[in-house]
């Protein structure tokens, strides 16, 4: 029997790794993947609390988080392709002018 706090600590570690990746990485696709990592950490929290409070709404909410993450990934990757077509680079440090 695993204490609830272990699950929450694991979720916090994954979230922290996601935030770190968002801050230190320079490739726009890797930054996007760190966002997905943060969402996964939050999903684990939701399911852990659903198991503790015996409420299935936690798992339903994870379903919605996944749907929103899918929609966000689709649109975000389309934006990345559009930026690559305009600027020929995937490095966020070089995408710093409003006009080409």
């Amino acid at each position, binding site marked *: *029997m*695993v204490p*609830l*706090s*272990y*699950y*929450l*600590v*694991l979720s*916090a*570690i*994954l979230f*922290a790794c*996601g*935030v*770190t*990746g968002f*801050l*230190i*990485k*320079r*490739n726009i*696709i*890797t930054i*996007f*993947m*760190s966002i*997905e*990592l943060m969402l*996964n950490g939050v999903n*684990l929290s939701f399911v*852990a609390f*659903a*198991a*503790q409070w015996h409420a*299935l*709404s936690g*798992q*339903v909410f994870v*379903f*919605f988080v*996944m*749907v*929103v*993450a*899918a*929609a*966000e*990934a*689709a*649109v975000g*990757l*389309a934006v*990345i*392709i*559009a930026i*690559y*077509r305009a600027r020929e680079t*995937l*490095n966020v440090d070089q995408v710093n002018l409003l006009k080409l």
Partner: protein
Amino acid sequence: MSIHLILFLFFGVAAVAGAVNLLAQSHPINSALSLIAVMAALAGEFLLLGAEFVAAIQVIVYAGAIMVLFVFVIMLLNAGVEERTKGSKVAIMFGIPGMLIGSVLVAWAVLHSYGNQQVFASVLEGTPSKIAMLLFHEFLLPFEVTSILILIAIMGAVVLASKPHAVQKRKEH
């Protein structure tokens, strides 16, 4: 040292190792593969918590569709190894210790406030039929709204990723 704890530690260590590898790798394709490993480990964790439908959906949707999209884009745009700029070195110098301190604080706060509340393995049966009952009765409005959201996302992605009209007009001349 119950089997629940051993499995939790196995999947947990795999998830954290994948997350740290995502940060450590310089080529985006390696980061993408580590993220897939994290998602698979999390699917295992979900199974331990009794959420079998959510675990299956995690594998099918997240690891099997969203990450395929990422891998496609990495392959299409021929993303290369990351370069180290001055900004990234500063971010690493301040970001990693900051995050370590932050996560240690959060972990300490969580471990001390929840006492000894235990979660038992697979007590809550997240079978598809129970989740469907909730989804189509209490959560019907969010369900319909997310379906419209996906429709908007599809249309937006197709419009954003198509070739711009200016290029087509130039080709006509």
